[in-house]
């Protein structure tokens, strides 16, 4: 079974987010970019399926300008077999992303598609579910455990209040949550090897997908600052303040 994994290039999660002075967007000039953490978990899961003899090949796909090849190479260094870049300078919205990926799914016919549940830049949490809708596949979102059993994949999902397990007919879509696995670090020999792995470049036009805008970004602003409070000297003072000043207990 072939496994398709998607990766997104995003602002490194350790970097402080700064809004541009003209409030048009977040400032991404000269900042460190990285593989979206949820995508990294997706890559790790796919590689583990291959190591367990369940997946025969792991194909990694990313959408964006040439720079995203860096994230594809990272995924290849972690153990994916080959990469596909869908080259565009636009930042396609989730539905366009799903349409592009649906075409790749049509071409590659994977048994399983694993995506991160959300990217840590736009925080949309949409692409996996949309891809599932467009391909008519079942979806196991926010996965904390993935088990392939025969013609079915059992996905344990992190839901409000606990865990839910669903069984999905293959092929199926899985989106990763944090506890699914702990991604490995790429070793130097694997980073070197990744440079020689095949990487195809396609365009949205090659795939016959027109990128449409569904939203217009009017403004991006920093969140309201919370005014700092005071330090109390003792538990006694804390309880007194909560009772008499804040009146919350």
């Amino acid at each position: 079974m072939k496994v398709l994994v998607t990766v997104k290039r995003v602002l490194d999660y350790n970097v402080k987010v700064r809004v541009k002075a003209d409030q048009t967007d977040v400032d991404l000039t000269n900042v460190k970019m990285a593989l979206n953490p949820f995508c990294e978990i997706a890559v790790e899961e796919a590689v583990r399926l291959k190591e367990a003899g369940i997946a025969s090949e792991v194909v990694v796909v990313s959408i964006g300008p040439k720079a995203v090849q860096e994230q594809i190479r990272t995924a290849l260094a972690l153990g994916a077999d080959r990469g596909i870049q869908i080259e565009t300078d636009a930042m396609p919205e989730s539905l366009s992303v799903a349409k592009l990926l649906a075409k790749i799914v049509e071409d590659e016919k994977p048994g399983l598609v694993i995506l991160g549940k959300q990217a840590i830049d736009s925080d949309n949490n949409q692409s996996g579910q949309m891809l599932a809708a467009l391909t008519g596949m079942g979806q196991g979102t926010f996965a904390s455990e993935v088990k392939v059993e025969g013609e079915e994949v059992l996905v344990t999902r992190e839901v409000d209040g606990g865990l839910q397990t669903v069984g999905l007919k293959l092929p199926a879509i899985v989106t990763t949550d944090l506890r699914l696995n702990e991604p490995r670090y790429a070793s130097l020999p694997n980073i070197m090897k990744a440079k020689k792995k095949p990487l195809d470049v396609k365009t949205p036009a090659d795939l016959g997908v027109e990128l449409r805008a569904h939203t217009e970004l009017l403004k991006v602003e920093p969140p309201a600052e919370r005014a700092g409070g005071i330090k109390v000297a003792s538990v006694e003072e804390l309880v007194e303040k909560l009772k008499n000043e804040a009146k919350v207990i």
Partner: protein
Amino acid sequence: MAILIVAEHDNATLKGATLHAVSAAAQIGGDVAVLVAGEGCQAVADEAAKVAGVAKVLLADNAAYGHQLAENVAPLVAELGKDFSHILAPATTTGKNLLPRVAALLDVGQISEIVAVEGADTFKRPIYAGNAIATVKSLDAIKVITVRGTAFDAAAAEGGSASVEAVGAAHDAGKSRFVGEEVAVSERPELTAARVVISGGRGMGNGENFALIEKVADKLGAAVGASRAAVDAGFVPNDMQVGQTGKIVAPELYIAVGISGAIQHLAGMKDSKVIVAINKDEEAPIFQVADYGLVADLFEAVPELEGKL
């Protein structure tokens, strides 16, 4: 305008998250219909009919919808949603799972986790883990939106008298099945609905030490949460996680114990009315957002706090 809200429920009772979505709908303006899709969920429909501001309840009672499987519910919502200008759902794991599938079936985008309504087509939503707030305008004919509950007051659960209309359409995609669930059983209130939340971080040292804050929680009728660091360290399960990658809470009182205050965590609790931080590191960033900070060893301060309540 007409707004369809997908109700969050467990076939027995309507979840409070739905009431926050009703408030968001009221701000958008227009007739509000609530869809209750489930199995044996008449009681939920009756409850939804009483919510102030709801004009109509659509009841889709079918075995295929019993466990809210998105493969089955999404075609139903997409079919019914064609007659509406907006489709809303609470930004819970159920809503987040379902609504993008609905949007794609309708060939429209989705606006996730709105925190403010600026107009019928314009909304504010947090991006970059709440480190920036985007104002976005929808260009689609049908606006598909998930609503962050903490940003909108709950609509009154009583006072409405909507009609309940059964909708027949049954969709069983045959792609997925419910296998089972493990629901955390707790006597304490649910995290996102609690008036008081007390959370522990890496400073708790291990899972057993959470008993210290549980005792305080019991005195205050509080829910118990945790930082991602505490979850990652294996102290407590993930459903207790407060933060951008966990639950978003905005209680009247939030007590952070042994939590340094990573941006990730702050994004999940900074809208709380009063924040208390107890941490032995006086440089911890949590103190910058705390209304009351106590620099102390939590293993002494927390039992003392429990004693004084």
